[in-house]
């Protein structure tokens, strides 16, 4: 039987985080196994092939493509500079027709079928950084490395913006507090700040103005996300936005308090360096945004303890509801009826009976609409 509920996001003070840092094309790995690295250290680099520019030389010269070869002054593989004459014809020894290179680069191909010449520009260097404070635990020859660290780890539900790092700083005093413009102070520059419930549009904009590196908070209004991105996000594939800040949302859209466990974890690690990534992909091969707070633990000593087994849902398990009408509420499992139960919508589904922590109210909720909170 499939797990009929979301297994919940990882929130833990001790976690072994392994990250593969791989080049987009084969290149050079510049670190060794066992080497300690910092987030901005380059671990591998390569050159991406330069951009291609096409030029139909035959058309320019008024030649049939099959006659182009005889007119070419440059050959495939030759370096050319912008303005170089690449082909030339003479008529009656007097009239000269030439064709010049529009860009600098290397001649990739000359076609006698199409009359086209392709020029490849200079290679573009690409570097991959370590992203985490940690140790290089594996090297994939010409491809990249694995960086491992030990420390606090928190998965968000949704994020925008890419990898960044900075000192962790609380911007609110309680997990119920909204992160507003007033919470942002000049000393937050370059830091990862922590909010409680909703981060407002004004709060995000103030943080960007102050040069805050990243925000971790409970909720975000979709309306504000649209304003921040400048478009309506259709599909949850993020991470490459150039918005000058990285956002990690831990609970969801709307005004939702950050889970107590998450807030307490971040509070306990205040002042430490946090590495965060807003990249989210909600498709097959789910990627959730993350907050990693590396500690000084020896990754080799702790690596055996990390085989984490997800427990199942049972009477007494702590749960959070992840959909209306009880969205965001936390409680414990009272019973797990095995038969399908009719919901208010008229659908039949497997359900869980929950008693909420704050008011002891009991409710029946589809198992698909809850997630486990790991103790």
């Amino acid at each position: 039987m499939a797990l009929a509920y979301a297994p919940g996001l990882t929130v833990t003070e001790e976690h072994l985080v392994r990250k593969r840092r791989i080049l987009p094309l084969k290149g050079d790995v510049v670190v060794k196994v066992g080497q300690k690295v910092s987030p901005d250290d380059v671990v591998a680099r390569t050159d991406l092939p330069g951009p291609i520019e096409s030029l139909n030389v035959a058309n320019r010269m008024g030649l049939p493509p099959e006659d182009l070869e005889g007119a070419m002054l440059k050959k495939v593989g030759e370096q050319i500079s912008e303005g170089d004459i690449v082909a030339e014809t003479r008529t009656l020894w007097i009239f000269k027709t030439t064709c010049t290179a529009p860009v600098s680069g290397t001649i990739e191909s000359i076609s006698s079928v199409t009359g086209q010449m392709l020029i490849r520009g200079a290679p573009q260097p690409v570097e991959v950084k370590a992203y985490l404070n940690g140790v290089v635990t594996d090297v994939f020859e010409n491809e990249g490395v694995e960086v491992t660290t030990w420390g606090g780890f928190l998965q968000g539900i949704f994020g925008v913006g890419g990898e960044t790092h900075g000192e962790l700083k609380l911007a609110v005093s309680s997990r119920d507090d909204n992160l507003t413009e007033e919470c942002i102070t000049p000393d937050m520059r370059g830091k990862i700040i922590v909010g409680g419930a909703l981060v407002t549009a004004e709060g995000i904009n103030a943080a960007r103005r102050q040069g805050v590196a990243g925000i971790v908070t409970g909720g975000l209004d979709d309306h504000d996300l649209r304003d921040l991105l400048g478009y309506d996000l259709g599909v949850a594939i993020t991470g490459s936005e150039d918005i000058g800040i990285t956002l990690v949302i831990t609970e969801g859209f709307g005004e939702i308090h950050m889970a107590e466990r998450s807030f307490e974890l971040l509070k306990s690690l205040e002042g430490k360096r946090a590495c965060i990534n807003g990249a989210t992909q909600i498709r097959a091969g789910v990627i959730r945004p993350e907050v990693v707070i590396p500690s000084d633990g020896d990754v080799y000593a702790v690596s055996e303890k990390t085989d984490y087994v997800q427990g199942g849902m049972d009477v007494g398990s702590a749960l959070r509801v992840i959909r209306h009408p009880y969205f965001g509420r936390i409680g414990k499992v009272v019973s797990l009826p095995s038969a399908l139960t009719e919901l208010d919508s008229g659908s039949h589904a497997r359900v869980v009976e929950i008693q909420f922590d704050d008011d002891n109210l009991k409710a029946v909720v589809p198992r698909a609409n809850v997630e486990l909170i790991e103790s």
Partner: protein
Amino acid sequence: MANLKPDEIKVILATDCGSTTTKAILIEFKDGEYRLTTRGEAPTTVESPIEDVTKGVLNAVTELSELSGRKLLDENERIITPANGNVGTDIYISTSSAGGGLQMMVAGVVRKMTAESAERAALGAGAIVMDVIASNDKRLPHQQIERIRHLRPDMILLAGGIDGGAMTHVVELAELIAAADPRPRLGSSYLLPVIYAGNNAAQEAITATLGKKVDLKITPNLRPVLERENLLPAREEIHNLFLEHVMAQAPGYKKLMDWTDAPIMPTPGAVGNIIKTIADINDIEAVGVDIGGATTDIFSVFRPDGKEGVFNRTVSANLGMSYSISNVFAESSMKNVLRWMAFKMDERDLRNRVKNKMIRPTTIPQSMEELIFEQAIAREALRLAFVQHKNFATQLKGVQQQRTIADAFKQEGSGKTLVNMMTLNMLIGSGGVLSHAPRRNQAASMIIDSFQPEGITRLAVDSIFMMPQLGVLAEVHPKAATEVFDKDCLVHLGTCVALVGEIKKSGMDVMNYSLNLPDGTKVSGTLKHGDMKLIKLGLDENDQPLTARATLEPIRGLDVGAGPGNKMETALPGGVVGIILDGRGRPLIISEDEETRVSDLRRWIDELEIYPEGAVTHSYALAEDVAAG
């Protein structure tokens, strides 16, 4: 299947490995017919930590075994064949869309001609088309090269030019592909497959350009002359490469391919197969839709010349009910979604709810209010997907038309859509929001509102989404596939009778109707503009629709299938919903006036019994409470 003849096959095991769930069905020959007897499912296991698709298959088959009492696996977890008594199966077949399905890029010279034919070939083979590169797509060569390099498809289909025609442009495209040096999505140990299905005179030049850089396969031109497409050879090559490369790279598939008695088909390819088979066997025009979490596929078979069916498939890659739900909003607009709701909701709250569904895609609506909202979104997703389908399913473009004097007054060029809602016989819906709607009346209403059938159209849904398995079964045992399709797969909802034509006055009489039901009852009346009428007529003891004899008399200018103003006498099949008379006109226009719109919606909801009595009023009151804080 080794040496079994079709009539010796009595037990069939079929699986569909979806991106999240692997579904298994058991079909058995009992009492002289093939019937679905059991179904089971388990999570798909192509991703870490298991990374072996066969584990999910074994889990689903184990559940099937437990539920059916038939032992299907031996001690070594191998499927037992052939069947012997209550042990084993005669054949095992499978489809797959796990790991993202088949992702292709196509390239052709002219966007609306050869590139579109190439796109049709790829879609027909069950692929997701990531991009279409064409010589005239207005991108500069370096932009096209960047795109090819960035996309990393499973394979590329390159077409262009008619046989013996000019070859410059298609070779130019090949040069761009060569310069991009594209790499396959999965695995790095093999060259990217590129199928060339263009001008045969250019084959040598294409080989010289691409031969060493990619794994080049050459098939006959898919558009040998402007007036004709020849898509089959390219489609077959796509299927071969799908098995050789894509499937072979996906975790566990080598083993799975070894287990199956027929080649594994991409799921959408198999669904298209069964819809085409059914349309051909019954000589009808049919449209099938599969609305999923991420994408909406539409399949159609139309017969523009009255004879041979033309099959088309489109994939609306970002229209779906969970992963892509937010995109439905972005493409359709909040206003268009809300017009289907008979109560107000706070816009800010709605936006957040949609995004929360997107980031937690497996959740389901618990309250009636949430269900109504999701079904409103589904109407828009289906509507938009069908608009895309109509624009794609066209006559060949670029073909010179022979015109008569009469044609001179019609402003029609080539490339007219093949979709004719008046001649369409059957609409089949599938996917969670349609197949699992708590009331079948809801599915019927969603299909009618979004597709807007005209004249007389039968409506059905796929009961448990077994069309993929039946599609691949149709390849090896068409009889079993069609029998199960008719008896167990299709849930006959009923028939929609919709009037087409300009209606001048709201509330005016638009059609007189008279129906003789099989039990001798006579139902007659007058349909008014803007009204819907449900006449209940269910199924017989074999779950086949009962039929009424009907006389339909539209007023002058309105058409129900026999021409404007013409009376029609016909048989109308019922179903679990019944016969729905739709007097709202086509195109369906929802009033901009809030009061009229809500009143219209509530009248239709009540007449078609879409939601339980009082549900809409209750949801309305709840929404008012929320709005009031």
